[in-house]
């Protein structure tokens, strides 16, 4: 909302310097977006009077004028031939800059120069050059009584400052979309009482009598729920012409284009009061129906109906739009924009002025659907007071009479506005919420300054908001007003007191921290990637995109789906990082994924919190790693799980695993079944680890040494973990032996390991530590492999003798032979 300080000052006095006022507005009213200082813009430009006019002797299109500024007579050459002796115009003297070019890259500075043999000292300015209206064809003839030599800025209040306050702040303040509303607040924050203009209060109501031959208009409101108030006035004998320059210049400087006196008056009143008005050409409306008298119907659109608006756009109004129509034709999109077919133009003689109240939600919906954000729509969608529609209409009638020669052709009864229902609160309630110690009298003054009516009875306050404050409904609203008008900066502030409970965060938080720290300690890099992915990404991974939630208003196709797993996003980051010069790295992400198959008890999508990991080494770096890359990802996972005290992890080959959960199937799709495993802990399948399928490696330009995993952290979190894996130190020495088994190839490493572990369990006082030393396959015997374990034995109670150990080992070898067909090498 751009406000003109000059206009504000018509309603209240401001004695602060501009900077201080702006700071105060920022602290107590709303954020100031911009301050435009116009005070130097028309510097030095004077009102002058033409005293002689004659054609240029050497040029057809030029004229030579003599003018006076009261001190001297000066000759100016102008292309405008229609200036007459006695006309007043604005003179830009040599050395002065054309106002509209000030602050641009090409400021135009006037000079005295000869034009075809006649001296021209500066120029007479057009409305556009003065930034008063858009007319650049003609010199602006001034409608001022000011004596020649008066500064133009003085004559038309041009030495103004425009303060642009963020609209967002006024979302709940419809009154502040009018200058009167803002002026009232500026008075309030300066601590001084504000008095609305008499015409706005209209306390006693009023009756405007017809001053011309009566003319009827039939108004039929078919949708009173959406349009609770629809008031019109008919005025005849209208003379459409440019508005007084003062009005034009006030509109122009706050960004409203001057059009003609009728339209300008409606816009000016909207700008002053917040109440949008519209003027229709009465005769055009009647002619649409081939009728003598106009008829207005407020209704919903008919099927297939179209309407061409004032801006030239033709729309097919949506089914709930509020239309203003003649008997047979739509003539306006109610509360948003008028129709082109009933526009006021220079031939208009009779007008219908509309001042209505439209439902704010319906206005917003229509405005959004058709993408029309007019000044009227902005104001109506904030919920203007219904009461003020009649009042502003009455003022419009007066101004049309003064500036457009219009006479009222209908009798207009204007009822006094009803105040809003009173709000009861008390001093304590307000002080409790603000932490302040204000007295009833102070509160009363703050509120009455902005024209609330306050009744104080001891501690009790009864506040009656004025009709324009549609936002004030509950006691908390009054708290806000008091705090703001008093100044939040003035409030005492101290920390709240309460019992000091120890807080414990949800334990998943600690798990996430532990994972991130552990993996970073193992030399890996944590990434975060978007939750939104392109459908294309799932094409590259071969995953189904149907179970993914789809954004209907995505910024781009790149951000259309909500990811169903984390690994694809990470896969995309591998190649660019190799290209950027990183030869080998481990990257991980802790994040969320969603899919349509997993719905929680609250009927919302279940949020999968997951961990994704990829290890990748490009050719050169891959030389340091031999064998299947699977084991590199596994090394990091095993480290992580052991740091988390998760002991019982199992790896089930993916090609022999089966599972029903969609999220797990979805992840499994990424992996090469022969080189991947399901991660199982305590019988729970937590995720999948492995090498990626060939197609994925190709699609993501992955090097050959790459592997990764993804697992579900909520499931992991659900597994009981020992608080500590500490083992007491033992007094007796340990003994260590390497043992190598030759086993058939299909026997797995874990088969052997489990057998070894089992073979020692009968003595719980024996501490057994088993470490893999080597896994070996002879080139000439691919049916077998050899695994060497280092077995460390230590007893709680005694030193183990060699023969004791030998008995244990022999027993192990026998069991291995029986169960696994293993032979000791």
């Amino acid at each position, binding site marked *: 909302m751009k406000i003109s300080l000059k206009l504000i000052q018509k309603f209240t006095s401001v004695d602060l310097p501009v900077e201080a006022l702006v700071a105060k507005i920022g*602290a107590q009213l*709303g954020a100031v977006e911009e301050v435009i200082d116009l005070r130097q813009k028309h510097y030095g430009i004077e009102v002058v009077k033409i005293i002689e006019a004659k054609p240029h002797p050497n040029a057809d299109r030029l004229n030579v004028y003599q003018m006076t500024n009261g001190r001297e007579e000066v000759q100016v050459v102008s292309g405008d031939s229609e200036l007459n002796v006695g006309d007043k115009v604005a003179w830009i003297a040599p050395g002065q800059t054309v106002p509209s070019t000030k602050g641009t890259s090409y400021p135009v500075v006037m000079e005295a120069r000869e034009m075809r043999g006649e001296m021209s000292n500066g120029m007479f300015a057009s409305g556009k050059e003065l930034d008063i209206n858009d007319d650049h064809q003609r010199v602006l003839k001034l409608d001022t009584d000011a004596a020649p030599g008066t500064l133009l800025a003085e004559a038309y209040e041009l030495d103004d400052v425009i303060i642009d306050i963020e609209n967002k*702040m*006024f*979302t*709940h303040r419809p009154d502040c979309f009018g200058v009167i509303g803002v002026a009232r607040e500026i008075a309030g924050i300066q601590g001084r009482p504000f008095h609305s203009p008499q015409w706005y209060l209209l306390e006693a109501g009023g009756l405007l009598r017809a001053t011309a031959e009566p003319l009827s208009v039939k108004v039929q409101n078919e949708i009173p729920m959406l349009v609770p108030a629809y008031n019109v006035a008919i005025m005849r004998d209208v003379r459409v012409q440019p508005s007084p320059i003062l009005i034009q210049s006030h509109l122009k400087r706050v960004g409203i284009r001057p059009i003609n006196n009728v339209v300008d008056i409606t816009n000016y009143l909207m700008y002053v009061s917040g109440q949008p008005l519209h003027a229709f050409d009465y005769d055009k409306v009647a002619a649409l129906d081939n009728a003598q008298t106009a008829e207005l119907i407020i209704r919903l659109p008919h099927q297939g109906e179209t309407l061409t608006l004032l801006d030239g756009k033709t729309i097919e109004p949506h089914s709930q739009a509020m239309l203003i129509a003649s008997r047979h034709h739509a003539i306006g999109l109610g509360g948003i924009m008028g129709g082109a077919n009933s526009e006021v133009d220079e031939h208009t003689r009779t007008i219908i002025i509309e001042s209505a109240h439209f439902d704010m*939600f319906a206005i*917003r919906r229509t405005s959004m659907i058709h993408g029309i954000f007019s000044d009227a729509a902005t104001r109506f969608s904030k919920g203007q007071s219904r009461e003020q529609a009649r009042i502003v209409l009455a003022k419009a009638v007066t101004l049309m009479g003064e500036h457009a020669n219009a006479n009222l052709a209908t009798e207009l009864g204007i009822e006094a506005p009803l105040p809003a229902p009173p709000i009861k609160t008390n001093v304590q309630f307000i002080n409790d*919420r603000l932490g302040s110690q204000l007295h009833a009298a102070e509160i009363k003054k703050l509120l009455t300054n902005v024209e609330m009516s306050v009744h104080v009875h001891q501690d009790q306050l009864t506040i009656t908001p004025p009709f324009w404050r549609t936002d004030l409904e509950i006691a908390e609203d009054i*708290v*806000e007003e008091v705090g*703001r008008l008093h100044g*939040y900066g003035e*409030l005492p502030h101290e920390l709240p007191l*309460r019992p000091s409970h120890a*807080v414990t*965060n949800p334990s998943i*938080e600690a798990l996430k*921290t532990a994972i*991130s720290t552990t993996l970073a*300690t*193992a*030399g890996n*890099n944590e*990434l*975060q990637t978007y*939750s*939104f992915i392109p459908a294309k990404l799932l094409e590259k991974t071969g995953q189904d995109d149907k179970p993914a939630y789809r*954004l209907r*208003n995505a910024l781009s196709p790149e951000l259309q789906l*909500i990811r169903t797993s984390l690994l694809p996003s990470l896969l*995309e980051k591998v190649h*660019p*990082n190799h290209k*950027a010069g990183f030869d*080998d790295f481990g990257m991980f992400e*802790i994040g*969320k994924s969603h899919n349509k198959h997993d719905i929680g008890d609250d009927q*919302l*999508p279940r949020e999968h919190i997951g961990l994704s990991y990829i290890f990748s080494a490009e050719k050169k770096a891959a030389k340091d*790693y*031999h*064998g*299947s890359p*699977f*084991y590199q990802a596994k*090394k990091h996972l*095993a*480290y992580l799980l052991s740091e988390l005290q998760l002991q019982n992890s199992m790896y*089930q*080959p993916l090609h022999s695993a089966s599972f029903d959960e969609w999220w797990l199937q979805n992840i499994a799709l990424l992996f*090469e079944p*022969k*080189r991947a495993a399901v991660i199982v802990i305590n019988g729970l399948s937590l995720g999948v680890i492995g090498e990626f399928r*060939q*197609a994925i490696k*190709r699609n993501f330009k992955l090097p050959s040494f790459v592997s990764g995993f993804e697992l579900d952290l909520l499931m992991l979190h659900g597994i009981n973990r020992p608080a500590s894996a500490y083992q007491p130190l033992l007094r007796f020495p340990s003994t260590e032996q390497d043992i190598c088994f030759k086993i058939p190839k299909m026997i797995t*490493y874990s088969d052997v390991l489990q057998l070894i572990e089992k073979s020692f369990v009968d003595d719980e006082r024996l501490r057994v530590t088993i470490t893999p030393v080597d*896994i070996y*396959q002879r080139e000439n015997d691919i049916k077998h492999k050899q695994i060497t374990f280092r077995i460390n034995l230590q007893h709680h109670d005694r030193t183990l003798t060699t023969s004791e150990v030998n008995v244990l080992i022999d027993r192990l070898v026998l069991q291995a032979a029986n169960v696994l067909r293993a032979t000791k090498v």
Partner: protein
Amino acid sequence: MSMKDTITVITQTLKARLEQLENKRDILKAPELKQLYNAMKQLEPDERPAYGKAINELRVELEQLVVNHEDQLSTALIEPIDVTAPFDCNVPVEKRPRLLTVEHGSRHPLTTEREIVASIFNRMGYIVHDSRELDDDYHMFGALNFPEGHPARDDYDTFMTDEGLIAPAHTSTMQNRILRWYKPPISAVVIGRCFRNEDLDPRHEHTLNQVEGVYVDKKVNAGHLLATLQSFLEAYYKTEIEFRTQPAYFPFTEPSFEFALSCPFCHKKGCVICGQEGWIELIGCGMIHPNVLQEGGIDPREYTGFAWGFGLDRLVMMKHAIEDVRYFQSGKLAFLKQFK
């Protein structure tokens, strides 16, 4: 024979030949393909686009068949491994899988900062929760006193799924849950990812992280709110700060403010980080609207509370003077490895 028929016939021929070929890739050099391309010149100009498209499609199809075949071949060559083993067969000790060295490792700066912020609020007695990334209209708007169709919703450009679920634009989407989960006195912080429908540039991201605070008890006032935020910021920046407030409008707080702190980097002298202002506008906050308390099952006549929200990303950017917010989600190791 029409051009279309020619293409159909050649397609069948080439597919049949592909079956026989030893080196499948040779099919892409087939003379028939070349002839098809050459024939283009003899066509009328208006026929060329459709024809060109048809032969390109054929080429792409053949290429896909070749690639699929190659994948099958290389997949067939893949030996199954013993997934239960810690390392592969016949791998010498020095080439076995190993952890990377610790100096390579890095944690994401947003993770680290989240923990720092969480830890301060923990010390102040606030429990820390995560937010949701996909929520319903009720939690994002309805429970927060945004009536359906209210213009206040315009200030929150939310992403919405086909089903009408919302990718929340603020962590306040958790506020109603916090109010319902705990009984007053409540002191909780929600830190999580949220989303704004805005175009990307060095200062704007559609994905961001927010820190939301909720405090509810008897006799809580706006002064408590201001002092709490000041106390947090002084602990965070390890320096004294001043603050100032600006009235604001949020439907879920009444009254509402914007909280600005004196720049902790230059102490109000003006610097690059505060844009020479000496002040940094950081936090939207206010007293929780009685309708929001009511909706959270708390009697607003008995209890009052305050809430705030600020951007975590902005804190991190200011702290390290990061020039582009998009780096956070970029996955660039050159960026990430600088944060230990």
